[in-house]
């Protein structure tokens, strides 16, 4: 039973997901001891709702990172979509379902622009998305001028989304779970989805295999934009008061969620489930800090430490697994009577 290297990414991903769940349990216990209301359904559901918005964007970002790229423009997409959707609702130009579709569509468009820059114009994704970050945010400011959309401007049906739920589980959480599930199945089971991993882990080999890497990259940027658009729609309904600066700086949280979730920045390994769990983990930390009355000035420092520890752990685990795999292979090959592995 040799451990084939091909299943290594899957092994790693599962490992990370379980460790995250374990960490979350430990963290929750620690906070609960000091502040029992941490685990109350009311608190947890609020935390989960806020984390769900980030999780949706993090799933899209994870797909991009899997292909060895990065999308730094997500928060500008979220902000622009949130404002545009709210504006259209305020002016009664569209009704709620149409506005939601519009928002997701706008996100798709913005993602396609990123994809085109990266694949057609061959701009490295870090440069392209740094550029579109400024451009999209600038567009949001241009669109809004100095105005803000207030809760009373929005149709109740839209705002109610943030409060809706099924059997006690908030709608946002269900949505995030659904998105994660669909994305996970797509990238793990479908032929095209698996190409995402291939492109990220070994672009040259992928090309040899006839995989159209540029098409794959283009598609994941489109998906990332679409999910960021969805996150923007959810953002607007949750926050109620929206200015052009909505979600400013959220890219740090999204990328942190992806990294903590075990998606390797070099591409090729990690899972979208991990990214979603990462978003939840960071949300729990933020909430836990507040409840144990630790000064909120520590939050940033802890975020940074968590990222570093997560990545370092990644590297250590990868090295160990690779060593174990190669040792097993060597043992199998040198065993008497063993055929070709």
């Amino acid at each position, binding site marked *: 039973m040799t451990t084939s290297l091909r299943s290594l990414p899957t092994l790693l991903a599962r490992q990370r997901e379980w460790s995250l769940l374990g960490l979350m349990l430990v963290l929750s216990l620690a906070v609960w001891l000091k502040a029992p209301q941490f685990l109350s359904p009311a608190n947890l559901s609020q935390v989960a709702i806020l984390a769900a918005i980030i999780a949706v964007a993090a799933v899209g970002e994870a797909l991009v990172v899997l292909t060895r790229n*990065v999308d730094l423009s997500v928060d500008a997409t979220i902000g622009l979509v949130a404002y545009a959707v709210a504006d259209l609702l305020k002016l009664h130009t569209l009704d709620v379902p149409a506005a939601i579709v519009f928002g997701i569509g706008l996100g798709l468009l913005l993602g396609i622009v990123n994809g085109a*820059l990266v694949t057609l*114009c*061959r*701009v*490295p994704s*870090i*440069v*392209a998305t*740094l*550029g*579109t*970050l*400024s*451009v999209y*945010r*600038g*567009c949001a*400011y*241009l669109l809004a001028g100095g105005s803000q959309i207030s809760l009373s401007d929005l149709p109740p049906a839209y705002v109610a989304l943030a409060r809706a739920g099924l059997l006690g589980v908030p709608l946002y959480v269900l949505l995030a779970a659904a998105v994660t599930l669909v994305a996970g199945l797509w990238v793990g089971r479908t032929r095209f989805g698996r190409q995402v991993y291939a492109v990220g882990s070994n672009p040259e080999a992928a090309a040899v295999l006839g995989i159209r890497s540029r098409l794959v990259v283009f598609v994941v940027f489109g998906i990332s934009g679409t999910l960021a658009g969805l996150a923007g729609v959810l953002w607007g309904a949750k926050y109620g008061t929206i200015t052009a600066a909505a979600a400013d700086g959220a890219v*740090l949280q999204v*990328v*942190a969620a992806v*990294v903590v979730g075990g998606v390797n*920045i*070099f591409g090729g390994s990690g899972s979208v489930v991990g990214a979603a769990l990462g978003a939840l983990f960071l949300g729990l930390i933020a909430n836990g800090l507040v409840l144990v009355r630790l*000064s909120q*000035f*520590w*939050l*940033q*420092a*802890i*975020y*940074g*430490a968590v*990222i*570093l520890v997560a*990545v*370092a752990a990644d*590297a250590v685990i990868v090295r160990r697994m690779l060593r174990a795999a190669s040792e097993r292979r060597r043992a199998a090959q040198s065993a008497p009577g063993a055929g070709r592995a």
Partner: protein
Amino acid sequence: MSAPVTHQARSADAGPRRLELSLLGRWEVLLGVVLLGLVIVGARLSPVFATAQNFSNLTAAAMEVGIMALPMTLIIIAGEIDLSVESTVGLSSAVLGWLWAAGVSLWLAVPAVLLLGAAGGLLNGLLVTRAGLPSLVVTLGTLALLRGLASVVLGPRAISTFPTEFTAFGFGTLPGTPLPWSLLVFALLGLVLGVLLHATWLGRQVFAVGKNQSAARYAGVRVRRLKTVLFVLSGTVAALAGVILTARLSSARADAGQGLTLAVVTAVLLGGVDIFGGSGTLLGVVLAVFALAMLQNALRLADVSTQLQSIAVGLLLIGSVVVPNVVIRFRRGGGTR
């Protein structure tokens, strides 16, 4: 028919280097032309643009970005990146303020802060070279970590009781001239690093590591040591930029320097440095720093809104990569895939 083929083959061999050299030469010239163009357009957009006082102002503000862009150039050429510079600025400002408020003399506090910056750089360097972690993620982590430490050190306070000599260093000019002090620092650092990068063996190593790390290692380059030194340099210089910023604003705050990483990386990329490493010139980055500062100043004086400025900078950044790509495609005559 063989002549064009041989020509093609030969240029393909010498291709990358020849292409780079001529492309780089072209890029600096292009930047120089853009700079000149900006001066002309700026002067037409506003009668007060082409005055010594205005140039002095816009230079002073650009110097913190410029100073940090110099070691960032070396780091990016070596194939890495340092996103944590703006947090080092914040941490150094916070610690400087905290030390000063606690009664420590500036003569002691400033070197202490520079050492702290070096320590932060060392952390980055070790994590990247020893633990083998990607610099994008490591410096993303230290970006948050160092900013958080700055908040813990200084909290909500803003220290502003600095002595006037210190403030004059940041805000004032060299006696008798409209040139800010920080320009002197920038010029010295630029000269030293420029010579280092383009005329010494060390500089060649930086390029080699960026082009092909394993090949460089086999050729005897101490890759780990080199990268660690570069990160330490970046951290120290960022701390210096933090000191200058604190002096210029006469105010030490934990949130100092927010947004500077984007500005520094934009300047370096605009200067023609390849984000994947292995090529770029310091001169290009210097020109880009001034071009960016001048562009934003000209737009401000023409009362162009801040939103449009942000869009302009974003488009410029994208354009700075798209244009060379188009040029390369054009020169290769369509090229093969």
